[in-house]
């Protein structure tokens, strides 16, 4: 795979507030890349820099080896699917979808089959003459998608396009997005704050927080090997504990020592210890490493979510077996389920 878009040392501030800090990023041809992060972390700004709606204070945007930092939006070979409210209300569905081709002065007899092809792609054949305001939110987004894709862009930028839809519709649209991306074989750069959506759809995920790239990796990498406590917490609810890494494979937290599988830390380095709720086992007293009292127990559909308070902190635990509130239980954690993280480490730090 070849690198298609590259962001080099991008810095962007609004009103003296640094929104993006030293963003370095390579986007491969035809991949489904997701930028994931909490609201306000700078996701949209990255997309707008690629789309040409903002220009960086410093750094470059490279497309196919060419510097396009100063190129206006209408000259860039990318198209955007906006969050919402982007269909032209004075045009019907057909004219909306045909907009880009008419700008390019493509003859009408060529436009017609392409509009039909696009409406078929997004499963909205027969909607040509409908006014856009008569469409549901999901239909509007699919028309917006057809309108963008008819230009055969090399890259499609998607800014939380499913954010305004209800859960069921969002699920349907997710699989449709994935299908369309596969079918057309184009690069998708997808922005979301929904970790589940990111994990389901992406080839690669970029986790962003406060304008800094935390981690880049496949969904599995990011889920299993979060680089720091922020990523761990954002990707899934986790127990994040203060710990000390004494030497290789030896860590202490919650008032006792544990065996773990991590190495290469400074002696007695302060670390974050991340343990997923499903990795804390409730065991009989003999095997237990920690003891605590059940504070709450809620049925979540597939599992029970429990809070167990030990001498030092509360553990969030997922288990298929419910326990009585007030019951004393023993806890056990396998060494490979104890994830040790350098404090504040982000992507690229290990190269220093």
């Amino acid at each position: 795979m070849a690198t298609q878009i590259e962001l080099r040392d991008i810095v962007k501030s609004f009103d003296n507030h640094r929104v993006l800090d030293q963003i370095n990023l390579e986007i491969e041809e035809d991949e489904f890349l997701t930028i994931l992060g909490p609201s306000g972390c700078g996701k949209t700004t990255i997309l707008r820099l690629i789309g040409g709606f903002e220009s960086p204070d410093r750094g470059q945007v490279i497309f196919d080896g060419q510097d396009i930092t100063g190129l206006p939006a209408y000259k860039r070979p990318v198209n955007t699917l906006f969050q919402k409210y982007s269909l032209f209300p004075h045009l019907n569905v057909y004219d909306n979808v045909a907009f880009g081709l008419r700008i390019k002065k493509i003859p009408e007899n060529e436009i017609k089959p392409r509009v039909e092809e696009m409406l078929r792609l997004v499963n909205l054949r027969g909607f040509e003459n409908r006014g856009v305001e008569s469409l549901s939110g999901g239909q509007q987004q699919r028309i917006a998608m057809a309108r963008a894709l008819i230009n055969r862009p090399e890259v499609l930028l998607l800014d939380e396009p499913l954010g305004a839809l209800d859960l069921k519709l969002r699920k349907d649209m997710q699989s449709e997005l994935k299908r369309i991306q596969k079918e057309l074989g184009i690069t998708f750069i997808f922005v979301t704050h929904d970790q589940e959506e990111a994990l389901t759809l992406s080839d690669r995920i970029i986790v962003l927080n406060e304008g800094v790239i935390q981690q880049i990796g496949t969904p599995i990498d990011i889920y299993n090997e979060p680089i720091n406590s922020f990523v761990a917490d954002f990707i899934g609810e986790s127990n994040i504990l203060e710990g000390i890494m004494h030497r290789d494979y030896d860590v202490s937290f919650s008032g006792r020592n544990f065996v773990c599988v991590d190495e290469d830390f400074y002696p007695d380095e302060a670390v974050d210890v991340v343990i997923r709720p499903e990795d804390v086992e409730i065991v009989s007293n003999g095997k237990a490493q920690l003891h605590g009292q059940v504070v709450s127990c809620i049925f979540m559909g597939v599992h029970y979510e429990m809070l167990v308070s030990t001498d030092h902190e509360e553990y969030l635990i997922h288990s298929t077996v419910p326990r009585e509130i007030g019951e004393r239980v023993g806890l056990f954690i396998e060494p490979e389920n104890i994830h040790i993280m350098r404090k504040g480490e982000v992507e690229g730090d290990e190269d220093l």
Partner: protein
Amino acid sequence: MSRFLKRLYLFLIYGFLYAPILVLIIFSFNEGRTRGSWDGFSLVWYRRLVRDREILSAVYHSLLVASISTIVSTIIGVLGAIGISPYRGKLKRAILGMNQIPVLNPDIVMAVGLMVFYRSLGLDFGLLSLILSHIAFTVPYVVLSVLPKLKQMPSSLPEAAMDLGATPAQTLWKVVIPYIKPGIISGALMAFTLSIDDFVISFFTTGSGVDTISTLVYSMARRGINPEINALSAIMFVVVLLLLVIMNLPKEKSAQEGR
């Protein structure tokens, strides 16, 4: 009882507002010269009116000035509003304030100001100065009627157009203008009615025999009672009424569509 009083109150207010106009329209059909007595129905004043060269030329001037100044001030006002809309905060309030002053300012101040200004420039008083004045005082109204529409427009609309390859000029024509069209139309109609309606500014900034309807009516009224004025005023009232109806039509229609 209180309901009856409320009705009566409303009736009196509207009666007070419309009685003069009603009287005027009735007497424009009066056979005789005096306003004191009714001498029978006749269209004589209307017939005289359409043969009166002075009046016809004033009507022509009024329509000419109103048309040209409406076109020019609509263009200026729309571009101005588009220019103002991206501003935020203090600067925006300052610019808008400056736009509002001519609206709130007494006409007479504007009129005398323009007169002095033209004189200092050495501009001849006539059709040109009249048109320039009308452009000057109608532009702010166009800006004010277009701005809310621009504010309503999500920024993703012009961005989507440019994203699809439209240049800024194409975006303006194909997306922005169609979106703000209702605002442009009501701004233009407002400019047109204000221009036809204006007396004070026209009176001070015209010259050398270029009369508009209102300046002519004024000088005719000074010369003595001429019932042609009644007929002319009645026609003007009906025309303005029609324009008002047209102006309010699209709004009602779009409100119904929105429901």
